[in-house]
């Protein structure tokens, strides 16, 4: 009988939603220049609140999500590296290496798909896979829910954020997504220049010209205020693919070797570069594009100098930028660095 009453008590105490009458949260307003940044699209069922963002930050830094309680989201998405991983591949709970470099989370809220292969359609969705991936957190959601429900502190925080008595994976994902949407950078040297607050050097101006014209043609993929296009491209890295990228999601032969365009904001801090972290320095990246890259059947037409050059010189491929021009391009890329972002204490636990 005793067991029956305990069972009944658990059932009653663990109902999903509490009484709505007294439930209130404090809206969280994102701050960014709305005349140059598009409105960040936020799902109606996960509007940002102070309580949700705070809870999401706590979860982001908490290794409780992993099976051995040693790895958190922040283990691989490190603030000083613009929330990416300075290691080529992140190491999971079991000592396994991943096979793609951890995506930088700066301004991630403006993306319309997530992961290098676009396999997640929302930030909320994206949270699910690393937790259960055996080479990442190697956990299961039932365990995560049990561990969080066993904590009176977390139960209280989820109650405040979502008015729920029983913590579930959906709300865990929502909280983390709320926090991730606050990871906003808009105070780089480039941003200040667009606002007329600083002057560019001649090198930076020439680098801007190379970036935003077909001299370098970076802008076609890395254009607009977030320096990415919410699209996928084969940027001539390989003739043959070990990683099929977008094809893994779509099954479309034309998507083999296509990967999501990452932002270049804070690119100074987010090495190594490319989906597999193959390039350690910006010089290597620039040299790749300057060479024209490597042909494959699905190479993007925007990589137009993969087998030619702008001047019609026989036998040469690529942009044929001079060393000074490459230096200037790098100088421009460095203007996308936002020290405020990588030191912002609001992003720290």
């Amino acid at each position, binding site marked *: 009988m005793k067991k029956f009453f305990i069972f009944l008590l658990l059932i009653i105490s663990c109902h999903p939603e509490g009484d709505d009458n007294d439930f209130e949260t404090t809206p969280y307003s994102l701050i960014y220049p709305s*005349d*140059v*940044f*598009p*409105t960040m699209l936020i799902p109606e069922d996960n509007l940002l609140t102070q309580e949700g963002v705070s809870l999401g930050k706590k979860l982001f830094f908490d290794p409780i999500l992993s099976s051995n309680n040693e790895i958190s989201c922040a283990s691989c998405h490190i603030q000083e590296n613009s929330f990416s991983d300075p290691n080529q591949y992140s190491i999971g709970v079991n000592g396994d290496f991943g096979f793609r470099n951890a995506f930088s989370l700066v301004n991630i809220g403006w993306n*319309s798909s997530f992961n290098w292969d676009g396999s997640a359609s929302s930030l909320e969705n994206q949270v699910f896979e690393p937790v259960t991936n055996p080479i990442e957190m190697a956990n299961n959601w039932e365990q995560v829910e049990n561990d969080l429900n066993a904590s009176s502190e977390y139960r209280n925080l989820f109650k405040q954020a979502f008015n729920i008595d029983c913590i579930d994976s959906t709300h865990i994902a929502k909280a983390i997504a709320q926090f991730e949407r606050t990871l906003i950078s808009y105070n780089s040297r480039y941003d200040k220049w667009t606002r007329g607050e600083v002057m560019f050097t001649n090198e930076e101006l020439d680098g*801007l*010209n190379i970036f*935003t*014209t*077909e001299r370098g*043609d970076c*802008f076609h993929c890395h*254009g*607009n205020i977030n320096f*990415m*296009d*919410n*699209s996928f491209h084969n940027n001539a890295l390989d003739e043959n693919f070990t990683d099929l990228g977008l094809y893994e999601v779509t099954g479309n032969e*034309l998507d083999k070797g296509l990967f999501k365009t990452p932002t270049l904001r804070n690119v100074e801090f987010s090495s190594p570069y490319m989906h597999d972290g193959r390039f350690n320095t910006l010089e290597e990246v620039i040299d790749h594009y300057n060479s024209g890259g490597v042909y494959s059947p699905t190479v993007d*037409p*925007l*990589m*137009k*100098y*993969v*087998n*030619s050059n*702008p001047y*019609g010189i026989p036998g040469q491929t690529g942009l044929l930028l001079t060393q000074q021009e490459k230096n200037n391009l790098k100088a421009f890329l460095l203007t996308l660095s936002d020290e405020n972002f990588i030191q912002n204490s609001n992003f720290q636990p």
Partner: protein
Amino acid sequence: MGVFKKIRFFILIIFSLVFFGSCEKEDELQIDIHFRQFIDQNELELNNLIYQNEVGNIYSIERFLYVISDLTLNLQNGESITLDNYYFINLDDENSLKLKNIEIPSPCVSVSFKYGFSQNNNTTNLYLNDSNNFHNLMLWPITLGGGYHYMKLEGRYLDNYGEQKFYNTHTGGLYGNDYSVNYTFDLNTTETYSKIYIDMNINNIYNDPIYDFNYYGSAIMSSEEAQSVIQVNMLEDVFLVSGN
């Protein structure tokens, strides 16, 4: 009239207004607009190096995005209905190829539109929050005049040595110049159309005057000469409007 009867009467009035008011007017028409792309008389086939322009370049098309603006349906009753600011046609997005169920009070007798944007409607960030990733995909750099691309037509061609090269035919308001083109196409005024087709013969973008990929090269965004030639080519025989 007793209170109950008054209430019943007003309920009947309200019901009648809602019911009859919600019915379509007898003469209300619906029309669909289809954006179609051809190479000469043939439906476009992407990613196939089979097309040939007037100068003899063999080429393929892999990506095609373009803008139609100021789309206006001119009606038999003298009215003109201008639809949204612009339409963004992207062959990667099937939904962009049709406008469905446009209501018009009278049959359509001609169609007017602009290829590209007028300068007034082509400033940077003007479409910052528009759907279908338009701003991200079509932004034209401020260093080249700002605003948005009119068109991105990309693919491969065989050069004079038979080697495959890539071309990017990107047009826009280079250095603030207006390279847009206005069109008006008359329809058969004795017909009442339910579908209008705005067709493009892409091959004629490169014809008359001739456009040689070997001369203009892979990249033309900074070339006023190329932008002008494309504009002249767009004047005739690229768009055609018909209905059924």
